[in-house]
């Protein structure tokens, strides 16, 4: 389990009485980008909640790498709707986790927050409130907040949704940058096949309570599974493949 950050075995995830996933095994490699894909409503967000500790699976084991102190992962989460605190400015949103967990002088906090904001190209927007931001800016502000505490792993729930192609591309580059410079691990939930194939190091495609495919992106295109091909086909056609 040397390169493995999270190993989840025989996970059974339920929403009330409804089974979402049955006996699935998930491996998240350290410092890599893992993508979760699948049709809407298959349960990707529920799986994300289980992996980041917000929800308890009905059964199964989740093991964190022994390299992590006390096996307690520092996580950052980018929510699908950004979930910025509306009564705080962008600066205060990013500063909140730092102020909450550390007793640092205000000048140091200001330096750290400005660094995070510059990393996402929002250095000029710290004084703005969330309702004054464009969609792309909101997304980047939420990313800045998710990396405020230099997390071990960052979960991105539909990071490209609602973004135009140029913004989506720049967010994909940002995610790659975070992995490189923070030495972080990323887990992305997305429907955006084209960007995912460029970005991800490993892909899981889910269907009907189980894993339809898991493997490297270059192998997913040659996969013979009919569901996988039909899931990917709109994008395969746009890339000129049949």
């Amino acid at each position: 389990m040397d390169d493995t950050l999270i190993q989840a075995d025989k996970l059974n995830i339920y929403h009330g009485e409804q089974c979402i996933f049955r006996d699935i095994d998930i491996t998240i490699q350290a410092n890599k980008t893992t993508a979760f894909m699948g049709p809407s409503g298959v349960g990707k967000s529920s799986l994300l909640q289980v992996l980041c500790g917000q929800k308890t699976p009905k059964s199964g084991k989740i093991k964190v790498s022994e390299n992590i102190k006390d096996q307690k992962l520092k996580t950052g989460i980018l929510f699908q709707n950004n979930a910025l605190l509306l009564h705080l400015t962008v600066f205060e949103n990013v500063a909140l986790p730092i102020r909450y967990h550390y007793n640092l002088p205000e000048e140091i906090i200001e330096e750290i927050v400005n660094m995070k904001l510059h990393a996402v190209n929002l250095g000029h927007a710290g004084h703005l409130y969330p309702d004054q931001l464009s969609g792309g800016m909101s997304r980047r502000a939420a990313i800045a907040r998710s990396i405020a505490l230099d997390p071990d792993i960052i979960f991105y729930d539909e990071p490209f949704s609602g973004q135009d192609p140029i913004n989506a591309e720049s967010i994909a580059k940002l995610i790659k940058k975070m992995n490189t410079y923070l030495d972080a691990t990323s887990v992305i939930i997305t429907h955006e096949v084209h960007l995912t194939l460029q970005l991800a190091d490993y892909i899981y495609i889910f269907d009907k309570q189980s894993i339809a495919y898991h493997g490297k992106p270059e192998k997913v295109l040659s996969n013979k599974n009919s569901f996988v091909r039909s899931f990917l086909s709109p994008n395969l056609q746009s890339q000129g493949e049949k």
Partner: protein
Amino acid sequence: MFFYTLSIAIPRKKIEWYQIILQMYYIGAQTISIIVLSALFVGSVLAIQGNYILGMFAATDQLGQFVALSVLRELGPVISGLLFIGRAGSTITSEVGIMKLTDQINALRSMDVNIKRYLLYPRFIGTFISLPLLTMLFNAFAIIGAFLISYYSLGLDKGMFLISINRYVSFWDDVLAGLFKTLFFGLITGTIALYYGINSINSSTGVALASTKTVVYSSIAILLCDYILTSMLMRLW
């Protein structure tokens, strides 16, 4: 159970204590204007009605006492409480409900922020501290309103108004008894507002419904509590 959970979630971090001060400003200070305005009108109407009723018994010189005792013992705590529910209680429920609806509470959890200490307790303690202070303000301005009306509009002697207050109003039995009730009213408002906010259904209708329930149930609870406390206090004193 929820009340107990709230009351033991005492802040431990500086940022959590700071939230208490912020909430006292939002809940308390921003309610001052409606309290003062309402108090002036309530006091004025009380003076007019009191003058009419006491006039039947040729006792208009007792108007000061009549107004002061009515406001301090009953009208001040209850009307302040009801106004507070409408302004602060519904705001707390809506705010927490919307935070839940838009995943802001989940975002706080994801940052390992303790929701009870950071979000709920400051609002809970804010209502507990703010309502007695607002009631004191209400009492003062209601009596001022009555005084102004009785002198300028009803032509009564201002000296008599003030003397009857001084002679017949007791600080312990009248002023403090009324304020004692507001401690309970504040706890009730805070508990109900936060309960419905944090348990609201995740939709705009759900938040609106939760806000309505806060106003309705808090109002009934305050009136019931007022009856119980008044009965207890009148037997004891």
